[in-house]
């Protein structure tokens, strides 16, 4: 059930946030989405998840039209996402967050699966904690992933899940994400600034700059591209010259 975006453009007033973006994500693949701040990465996630309607272009996930479809139907179609700043359902406990996601996103009730997700994310001891007040940042990030997993997605979109974590926390989270892809058989799109993370986690990397795709290939090839280095890392310009 591949994701296929064709010629996606988004304009906010006079500002072009995305221009003619094409992106295809095959089943089971892990794609890194990188680019400097303001490049349009989160806007692209918002288009896929329905929070932003594209000005032009078409977006499909399998048989689902992502341009016309309702936001709450994304989860049933198999798309799960996280937010850069965790968005827990703060009135609910951790377990209730996952229960709601499973009941309404996956359309079934399976408490043992919830326990499995809590265990996988090391959140079992916080299952009955209030999502708003009782979680450290790393646990809020884990809950963010858990909410998406509970909807039983085929495509998981991760928006800077490692941002703000300490080095050891990042390493543990990265191991968890690698396991997620391997054991849960998911396609993933990962927005991340950390090149090492992208290189270790992703088979493919897409670079956005000023709302346009400027490179698409393996992480090694992409990060050697002078234009990418110039726009993304800021180090390529001198070498290129």
């Amino acid at each position: 059930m591949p994701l296929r975006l064709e010629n996606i453009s988004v304009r906010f007033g006079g500002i072009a946030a995305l221009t003619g973006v094409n992106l295809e994500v095959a089943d089971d693949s892990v794609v890194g989405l990188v680019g400097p701040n303001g490049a349009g990465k989160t806007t692209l996630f918002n288009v896929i998840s329905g929070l932003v309607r594209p000005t032009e272009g078409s977006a499909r996930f399998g048989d689902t039209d992502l341009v016309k479809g309702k936001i709450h139907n994304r989860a049933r179609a198999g798309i799960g996402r996280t937010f850069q700043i965790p968005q827990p359902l703060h009135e609910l406990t951790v377990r209730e967050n996952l229960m709601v996601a499973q009941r309404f996103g996956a359309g079934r009730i399976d408490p043992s699966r919830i326990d499995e997700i809590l265990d996988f994310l090391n959140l079992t001891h916080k299952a009955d904690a209030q999502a708003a007040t009782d979680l450290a940042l790393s646990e809020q990030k884990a809950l963010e992933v858990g909410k998406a997993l509970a909807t039983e997605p085929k495509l998981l979109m991760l928006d800077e899940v490692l941002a703000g974590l300490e080095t050891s926390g990042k390493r543990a989270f990265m191991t968890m994400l690698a396991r997620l892809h391997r054991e849960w058989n998911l396609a993933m799109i990962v927005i991340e600034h950390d090149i090492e993370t992208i290189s270790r986690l992703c088979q493919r990397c897409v670079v956005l700059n000023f709302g346009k795709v400027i490179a698409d290939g393996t992480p090694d090839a992409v990060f050697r591209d002078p234009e990418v280095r110039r726009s993304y890392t800021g180090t390529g310009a001198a070498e290129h010259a």
Partner: protein
Amino acid sequence: MSELVLQSLYAGLLAGGYYALIALGLTLIFGTMKVINLAHGEMVLLAAYIAYTAESVYGINPVLAIPLAVAAVVLTSVMVYGLVSRIRQDRELNSLILTFGIGIVLTNFVLMVWSADIRSTNVPWFNEPVVIGEAFYSTSAQVLFFLAGLGLTAALWWWLGRSWYGRALRAVASNRNAAMLMGVNPRTTEVISFVIAGLLAGIAGVALYTVAVIHPDLGHNLTIKAFVITVLAGLGSIPGVLVGAMLIGVAEYMTITLASSALQELTGMVMFLLVLFIRPSGLFGSRGRVG
């Protein structure tokens, strides 16, 4: 003197039960949609007049008119939702203006259909005295709707905490976008909250008719009382509504006993202002909570 104070305390607590009934719907809708329904009091009043019509025209006991009153108010409530949900920008502010206007329309509708005369029940049972321990006096209606207030508050709290749609409603109240991406249809939960608010307002209206006199101007007083209780409780807090309603009830009856009945409404407003100054999130509040 101490007997009078105890009696005021008792009467205030009983009044708090049905005040809670009046305020619960307003709290629920605010918790879900961040909309303050300024037509809420008029919807309660509409139910009261339906109970009056059932009794005076058809000779039906007002309590038996609850299904009809509830049906009419739920329908009105869903129509209000239909209008509120069409507001695309600045919903919190624009819905105030819209629902204020709907309140005026409803008041004039009541005035047109039932005239400006005051009305009260003629069913003797509602005014029969209930005496507990020879010290606490009340009427049957006060006790009945105090218990109804307690029961319905508990039921609503249970429903929000334990049922799937109760959780979904709290999910939307917590974070609408996140809830949608988890598969929750926010419109369904919003409609449900307006239906429940209508149901509670319908029962509150019948309660009002049996414990007090009604007249067409009463609607906005009821809205203000419900709003004061909701703010006192902490916007969106269901158990807080019961406690806030009882505090208001006790404060009002104490004022009547120790000072003057003319100051009854002022007491609530003073408490309202004190809470806003000292604890703006209310006694049990966190922003946007519901449950």
